[in-house]
């Protein structure tokens, strides 16, 4: 094919100018208006979507960009949830500050988990991170003096600036944090770190030849990703107001990974769409007696077979044709 034809095709593929910002504006406006439209249950589902979207954003940087599989994100989510809850409830640290500190603490845990990632690849890395996830969950369970072990932790609503956060307040907090998270992930994915992660996924040797130390960037990717998961965990803890070690099992890690793959690897939009699909579709299927699991499972298979680039890839294809 001639270069001219290539260029013409590339130009055709570009979205009409301004479509992106307009769509984004509509989504943000709809999200802001949601508490006025939805009932308590609907708002809870939407809040949970936001929390999971935050995890997916971080995981997508690690898996979609850097090509590293993690099966311990539920544990990062859990460490963040417990750290935030304990800091706020037991130590009396202001909620927003505990979210940040919990996130930074878990980022350090994530950096430690990254150490085997410097040597392991693909399935081997997946199994190693699976092991880490189990260990972290076990630590939460056994450290009874701090976490109350199997008894779980019951939490009272958090207070920000003298105002007690109920469902609507928590929802707006999640919305604000997710917006910040999208902004940060967008910047990183288009900055030197995002580009470094992409070339590391392609070839670590090529990355080295370009002066990019693969090992250091894998640690950075794990740390950022764990930070996102932990902040989401801190929001989750106060959304459900009761956390238990069993909440953070490997099953949830697999769910996080599914969200990223279904939504679209290596895309910001995909993280959000994937989380929405994973949370909202089972809720919509609830009416079908006994069948929600079955239908949802089949939907997962269909999405993967028909949309190799995930739901976001499909949305982009439709957007280009329009």
């Amino acid at each position: 094919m001639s270069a001219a034809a290539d260029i013409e095709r590339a130009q055709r593929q570009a979205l009409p100018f301004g479509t992106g910002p307009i769509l984004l504006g509509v989504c943000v406006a709809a999200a802001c208006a949601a508490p006025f439209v939805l009932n308590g249950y609907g708002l809870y589902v939407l809040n949970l979507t936001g929390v999971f979207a935050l995890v997916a954003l971080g995981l997508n940087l690690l898996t979609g960009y850097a090509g590293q599989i993690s099966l311990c994100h539920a544990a990062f989510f859990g460490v963040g949830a417990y750290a935030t809850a304990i800091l706020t409830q037991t130590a009396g640290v202001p909620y927003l500050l505990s979210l940040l500190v919990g996130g930074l603490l878990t980022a350090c845990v994530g950096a430690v988990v990254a150490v085997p990632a410097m040597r392991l690849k693909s399935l081997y890395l997946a199994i190693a991170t699976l092991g880490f996830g189990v260990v972290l969950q076990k630590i939460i369970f056994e450290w009874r003096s701090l976490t109350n072990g199997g008894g779980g932790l019951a939490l009272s609503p958090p207070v920000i600036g003298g105002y007690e956060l109920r469902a609507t307040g928590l929802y707006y907090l999640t919305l604000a944090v997710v917006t910040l998270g999208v902004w940060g992930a967008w910047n990183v994915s288009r900055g030197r770190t995002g580009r470094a992660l992409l070339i590391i996924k392609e070839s670590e040797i090529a990355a080295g030849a370009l002066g990019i130390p693969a090992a250091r960037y894998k640690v950075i990717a794990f740390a950022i990703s764990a930070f996102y998961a932990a902040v989401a965990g801190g929001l989750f803890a106060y959304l459900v107001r009761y956390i238990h070690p069993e909440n953070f099992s490997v099953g949830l890690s697999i769910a996080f990974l599914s969200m990223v793959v279904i939504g679209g690897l290596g895309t910001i939009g995909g993280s959000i769409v994937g989380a929405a699909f994973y949370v909202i579709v089972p809720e919509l299927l609830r009416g079908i007696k006994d069948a929600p699991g079955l239908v949802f499972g089949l939907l997962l298979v269909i999405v993967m077979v028909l949309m190799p680039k995930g739901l976001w890839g499909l949305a982009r294809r439709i957007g280009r044709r329009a």
Partner: protein
Amino acid sequence: MARLSIEDVSVDFGGIHALQDVTFEFESGAIVGLIGPNGAGKSTLLNCVSGITRPTQGRVRLDDKVLSALPPASVAGCGIGRVFQHPELVVDLSVRENLLIACHRSLGYGLVSELLKLPNMWRAERDAARRVDQMLDRLGLSDSAELAIRNLPYGHRKLVDLGRALLMDVRFLLLDEPIAGLNDAEVAKLRELLLRLRDELGIGILVVEHNMPFVSRLCDRLVVLDLGRLIANGLPADVLRDPTVMASYLGEDA
């Protein structure tokens, strides 16, 4: 003027001597061809210089700095560019974005600036974009800047790969079979480009290539390896007439 020295370098893989006591050096501003039959150790030598393979014995030096103890990313940071036989580009990204990857080290901003898009980030990115524009112009790829690599012909991909190495402000460039897969017009263009790069930027180029006419017209000097040993080092005309070289290497084709 910088000098790259390969000093008594040996590499053993298990019981196999991939390189044995190879010694030669060259200065920036020179184009040196590294030739030899398959399995002679040419790529192993390039890997030693770029830090991918540790020499079992001997060392590689850039002026007074010993490179053979450094990891590949640090060697690259010293100004040693490496272009692989098959370009390893991110195929979903555009030509411009692939070139930006190579600006990594010169973009000095930290992670926090990046997450929050602080002014120092976008200022650095703007400067890098300008350097990429100049490189696109130099390579004659300005028209393809926004194309995804997957829509780019192979010859252009090799140019992008070369451009990436050059954007690191290299003093020495290691090229592994740069013309494999290129057509005659592309080969002629590449030769001109390499000569121009040497003259304008004063860089030293070490090139592994099988195509004798290309090598003899491009290189100031030839180094010949056979079975891991250096068997000749001199002007192209002299080396190609050397009976040892003809026996070991050119004899194969005769």
